[in-house]
């Protein structure tokens, strides 16, 4: 009899998630119908190649190659970002065109632009999006702010869910104002706790909030119908989607969208203990978020965008005290469940590499932007597979020969012994198509292991 999930070791769980990724299902739960036997073969070869690179047990047939874009596919298809957010068909056309034009080993699906109409309905304030706060031709961008105040750590630590529903969400979504009046659900105890705690749901602002939620939910469902079908088509054409979902390093949860950059930096001096306590509290929540998505979609890779721990954003001492401990705990929590953390080290992380190599081998996948790759290969690269480092400026304003030279040097520096995947280093919008093509084609040719 097959082993139950609970009885498996972390290695067996990882193998199980790879096996599920290798045999994708359609929404009805049946085996996905590939476009052709060749497409099915290509799909499985690509996953095998990625798996070998990540596990670092044996060499893949060649160095895999990814394209990890922001709005590049949209520009590449001749659409504006605004169109990609509001016309789901156009969004799908753009992302399908990307894999057809360039044939990378991995793709990230068409989910990134997201549904503009949902943000409209919810009156989303945390981001400006194309045609709403930024030009229709620009990508979405975050609005920094102290969405959690300096004196609200205790509220977050005591009850994170309640803090999110009653305090944080009404601040970042104008249409969720009514949530401020919600009862604490843990107060619904015994028969006496019922009526009183349901009174808020009768109040007009709360009902208006629920109306907005229903509308947003309906629209989000419409969106995933279109985008999910598109992602499945890309799978069926032989291109595996990389990520089952995402989670975050606890420091970034607080520093990006709760306290903001300035807020979290001041907290490191003024209330370091509260900051650390809150990060500890968020750690199991971030683990569950990643593990839940990986199990739901039957795929091992969970994306983790890294921000405020980059070189310059804090000292090495601060990194070791504030950033690394809970970030590592989140990764170890994912690894224990067979999940492969895929942190994206945006910017430079050269001074952090030695600290970050304190991880089990063959269990992580790193997107590298501008870190020193020779040093990375000798440190973090000993335990984790890395991809990236092809720079945005070269892709945007360089030429194919420059790209080939750069990729050649990267493969020479990083690919020896496996554990490297060619890719752009940062999520990019603008780029010359011929440069992206040169990156992929050259990697496939030059990256063959002999």
């Amino acid at each position, binding site marked *: 009899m097959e082993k139950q999930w609970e009885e498996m070791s972390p290695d067996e769980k990882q193998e199980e998630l790879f096996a599920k990724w290798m045999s994708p299902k359609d929404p009805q739960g049946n085996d996905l119908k590939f476009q052709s036997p060749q497409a099915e073969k290509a799909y499985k070869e690509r996953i095998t190649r990625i798996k070998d690179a990540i596990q670092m047990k044996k060499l893949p047939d060649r160095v895999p190659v990814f394209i990890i874009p922001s709005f590049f596919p949209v520009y590449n298809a001749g659409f504006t970002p605004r169109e990609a957010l509001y016309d789901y068909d156009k969004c799908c056309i753009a992302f399908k065109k990307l894999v057809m034009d360039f044939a990378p080993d991995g793709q990230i699906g068409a989910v990134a632009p997201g549904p503009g109409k949902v943000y409209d309905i919810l009156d989303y304030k945390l981001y400006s999006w194309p045609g709403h706060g*930024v030009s229709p*031709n620009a990508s979405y*961008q975050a609005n920094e702010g102290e969405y959690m105040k300096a004196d609200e750590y205790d509220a977050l630590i005591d009850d994170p869910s309640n803090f999110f529903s009653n305090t944080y969400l009404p601040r970042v979504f104008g249409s969720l104002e009514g949530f401020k009046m919600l009862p604490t659900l843990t107060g619904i105890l015994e028969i006496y706790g019922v009526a009183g705690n349901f009174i808020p749901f009768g109040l007009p602002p709360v009902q208006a909030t629920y109306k907005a939620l229903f509308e947003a939910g309906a629209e989000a469902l419409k969106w995933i119908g279109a985008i999910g079908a598109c992602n499945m088509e890309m799978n069926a054409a032989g291109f595996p989607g990389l990520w089952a979902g995402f989670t975050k390093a606890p420091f970034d949860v607080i520093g990006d969208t709760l306290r903001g950059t300035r807020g979290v930096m001041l907290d490191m001096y003024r209330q370091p203990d509260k900051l650390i306590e809150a990060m500890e509290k968020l750690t199991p929540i971030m683990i569950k978020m990643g593990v839940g998505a990986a199990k739901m979609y039957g795929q091992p890779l969970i994306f983790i965008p890294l921000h405020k721990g980059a070189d*310059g*954003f804090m*000292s090495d001492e601060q990194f070791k005290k504030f950033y690394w401990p809970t970030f590592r705990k989140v990764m170890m929590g994912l690894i224990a469940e067979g999940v492969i953390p895929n942190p994206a080290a945006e910017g430079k992380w050269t001074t952090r590499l030695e600290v970050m190599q304190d991880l089990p081998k063959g269990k992580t996948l790193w997107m590298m932007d501008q870190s020193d790759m020779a040093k990375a290969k000798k440190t973090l690269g000993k335990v984790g597979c890395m991809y990236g480092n092809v720079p945005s400026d070269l892709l945007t304003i360089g030429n194919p020969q420059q790209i080939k030279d750069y990729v050649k040097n990267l493969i020479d520096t990083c690919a020896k012994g496996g554990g490297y995947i060619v890719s752009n280093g940062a999520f*990019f*919008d*603008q780029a010359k198509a011929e440069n992206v093509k040169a990156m992929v084609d050259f990697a496939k040719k030059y990256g063959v292991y002999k």
Partner: protein
Amino acid sequence: MDYRVQYRYRRETKMAKDLVNTLADLKEQEAIKIVKDRLSAGEDPLKILGDARRGMEIVGQRFASSEYFIPDLVYSGEILKEVTELVKPKLTKTAESKKQGKIVFGTVAGDIHDIGKDIVVFMLDVNGFEVHDLGVDVPAQKFVEKIKETGAPIVGLSGFLTLAFDSMKQTVDAMEAAGLRDKVKVMIGGGQITEEVRKYTGADAYGKDAMAGVNLAKKWAGVK
């Protein structure tokens, strides 16, 4: 020197040094207490601000030598803000005007990222430059107008996204079209900015961090 005057002189010199050092060492509570004590002792508020500025210069030097990082800059800025707020009501004459020169600064069109820009603007300000910060998503024409209005000889363009490459180029082109290009030095900066991008945009230089921006400005303004 009269004994009491001498005592007071010594005490003030010591406290001045204390404020410079406590601020440079980011000791928030101590710095605030010293400022309060000196104000209640009736000291010239301009002298206090001068000491605070000297403390900030040390912060800048430590940042340049990688002893300090962005959180230290942010925190020092916060302490300086508190000091300024304490001192301001006591100011009878206005502080000396910035003498290092004028700079027009902003994040270019289509881009609303401001963390990097704010840090450079802050560092330029504490280094004595008069910075005209136009904010984010600034159209090329707005830069041109501000350069004309202020006569600033230095311009800083910030951007985080790849789309900023084109906006920077368009902004430099707009200066050219307005006949301003040979009157200003243009620096660019941001997460993905390199020498390649500098060439593409036609800017004069790029800075890899805030201190590089300050050093460029000092060089261009002829500051020793």
